[in-house]
């Protein structure tokens, strides 16, 4: 049986040059669909990856209840202190909690493209760096505590104008020079400026914090302990989550939107490609009806003939998917994109390519199925007689 299938499929391909252009319809169609699908999904993948990187599951974030994100959250000093007293937070050798409140201030900035927008300045407390093992200075130096200095993330430096070491950020109380560049593994923090929290708050006359970040105590159950303590406190109205969960929730709506659009667009195109594939395979069967009939007359079974048709469709589609993936990868992998305050790279992952291949296979199967049935059911005698 397998030998028959192989033989017929081989014959198919020998005659393929006669059907070159119609076969290219499938290849081009698939290439277009997969290229578009993967390119659009690479946005989601890159976005989600950068968001997820920022979320260390061993780190907890506490923000006010009922707000959409850290930016909109507001916590008083008293509230922050209550939060940092809660159980489940790791303590340093000297007994201090590895936790701090942080503040976020928006500041106007201009992108390198000339567009005016806002970026975030985050105020680090004394534990800011300790809370983030992924943090490292890659140029210049860290700002001195209490000093009017800032450092910029690598991605932020790439995206925004005036972010070189030595450039100054203007706040109400004067100029703040940039003294260093940091990296945090490519996560979204790299799109922000960092400064000393208390100095920053004084400069913009802020009295409330945005959030509290804490390193969870080792061992299971620390997160639940912290969460229960905080939600059980009637004086507090906060949400406590792992940092990873926070970013999941935060990025989910956007990720879903991107993915939904990608799949809708990809789906529509796949449908178009499907009709194209059907057309090509019907024509292929029709063009070779005499050949097929001859094979059947010789003794080849109907099933091998049918399978060979589907196989041809699959192989053509796969070559298209390969080309499409290559196009998507070449054009978009690693290209930087800024989505509002989030700066990240588009990622064409092996997973995406696999998805593309799966789609191509699905379309090819559907596109080859009906024609293959027609090939199998071809009335042998009529086909042999036809001119």
């Amino acid at each position, binding site marked *: 049986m397998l030998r028959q299938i192989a033989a017929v499929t081989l014959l198919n391909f020998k005659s393929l040059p006669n059907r070159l*252009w*119609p076969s*290219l*319809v499938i290849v*081009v*169609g698939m290439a*277009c*669909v997969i*290229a*578009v699908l993967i390119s*659009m999904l690479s*946005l989601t993948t890159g976005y989600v990856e950068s968001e997820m990187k920022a979320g260390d599951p061993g780190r907890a974030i506490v923000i*006010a*209840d*009922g*707000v*959409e994100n850290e930016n*909109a959250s*507001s916590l008083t000093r008293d509230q922050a202190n209550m939060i940092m007293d809660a159980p489940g937070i790791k303590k340093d050798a000297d007994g201090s909690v590895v936790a701090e409140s942080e503040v976020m*201030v*928006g*500041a*106007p900035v201009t*992108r390198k*493209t000339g*567009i*005016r*927008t806002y970026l975030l300045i985050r105020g680090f407390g004394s534990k800011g760096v300790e809370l983030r093992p992924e943090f490292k200075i890659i140029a210049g130096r860290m700002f001195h505590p209490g000093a009017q200095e800032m450092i910029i993330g690598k991605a932020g430096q790439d995206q925004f104008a005036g972010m070189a070491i030595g450039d100054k950020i203007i*706040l*109400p109380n004067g100029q703040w020079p940039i003294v260093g560049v940091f990296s945090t593994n490519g996560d979204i923090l790299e799109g922000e400026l960092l400064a000393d929290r208390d100095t920053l708050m004084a400069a*913009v*006359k*802020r009295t409330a914090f945005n959030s509290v970040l804490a390193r969870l105590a080792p061992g299971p159950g620390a997160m639940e302990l912290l969460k229960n303590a905080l939600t059980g406190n009637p004086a507090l*109205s906060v949400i406590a989550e792992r940092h990873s969960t926070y970013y999941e929730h935060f990025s989910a*709506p*956007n990720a*879903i*939107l991107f993915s939904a*659009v990608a799949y809708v*667009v990809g789906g*529509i*195109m796949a*449908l*178009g*490609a499907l*009709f*194209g594939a*059907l*057309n*090509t395979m*019907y*024509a292929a069967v029709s063009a070779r009806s005499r050949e097929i009939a001859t094979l059947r007359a010789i003794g080849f079974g109907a099933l091998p003939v049918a399978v060979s048709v589907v196989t041809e469709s699959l192989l053509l589609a796969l070559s298209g998917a390969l080309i499409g993936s290559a196009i998507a990868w070449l054009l978009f992998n690693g290209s930087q994109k*800024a*989505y*509002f305050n989030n700066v990240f790279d588009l990622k064409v992952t092996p997973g995406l390519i696999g998805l593309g291949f799966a789609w191509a296979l699905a379309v090819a199967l559907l596109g080859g199925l009906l024609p293959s049935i027609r090939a199998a059911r071809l009335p042998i005698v009529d086909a042999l007689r036809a001119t």
Partner: protein
Amino acid sequence: MKYFPLVWAALWRKPTRLILTLLSVSVAFTLFGVMIGFNASVQNVIALSPMNRAGTGARFGGPLPYAYKDQILKIPGVTKVTGFAGLPGYYRDKKNNVPILMVDPDAPDVIALDFTLTQAQWAQLAQTRDGVFVSQLEAQRYGLKTGDQFPVLTTAVTRQDGGKAWAFKVLGVVPDSTYFFNGIIVGNYKFLDETRPLAQRGTVGGYQVLSTSEDRAESAAKDIDAHFANSATPTNTMTQRDASEAAAEAGINVPFVTSVVAGAGLFMILFLTGNGIAQSVRERIPEFAMLKTLGFSDAGVMALVFVEAAIPCLLGAAIGIAVSKLFAAQVPHLFPPNMPTVPAPYMSPAVLSLAFVFAVIVAFASAVIPALRIRRLDVAAALTGR
């Protein structure tokens, strides 16, 4: 046209091929319509925004003093100023964040440009402190109509009396505006200010500032920021153009993405239709030769081929655009209230014309090589089977 039966008969030679081609073209044009329509709607939002307007906010976040209003009015070129503040609330379920904009009822004109309220309705809002106007989408989402009570809750304390509940009354349902394409609710700023905690009173979230012209708006923006630069709350004023450009760039590059996707779809089916025509013509070479013997000129035979290509393209384009119109109408209803959303595709006459043009281009491009081959047809050879 008297040649129509000829073309029609040629089309239906292989019914399967015709139907599949038609379906494929329809799908490609559905995509085209959705993409180009979406781009048109985004451009529309930008285009309809008044360019002689600017938005003033606190430079480093936070509220602005209400007192700034009179000072801004004194800046040269400024004609009107509207203050506004947001109320972060939800309706019944915490997930139902309602977008309520509290607008200064004494001078709503600058913001009014983004809304669909009539003068009379703004006046009504000024007179009814606890009144709100609800846009169509929001009304549908929450089942609201004129006269209904509309209770909104906030998670933090937002009232001087320590409460979190706001009892609004729906004064009317207004059509959705292009700018707030996901729905909006507008209320009375004075009501917010006299009810909120004392410490927060006398502040706004920002100002919308109208100037005499776009250039004036730009200079006024700089003047405003310069005026407040050394004050307790410095400002950052962005012109409408700046804001539109930032929004366009900060998201996805819509014109680029939509064009590339639409283009990919068209390219895909171009291959299909081109191939279909080429095949169809190849099969009928003796027929074309015969037509030439009857006296059909080269041009005549080529015209037949083009018309044959054009019919499925135009028909498919029409079907595809019709489907995309249906889809466009459904888009606002596809998004749950708290999702980031996109404006519905705007199927303007420009979009429709563009679809028509591309349908013709695809038809032409698919038919051109086969048609040229027919032109160079060696009739004698074709008839003798050479």
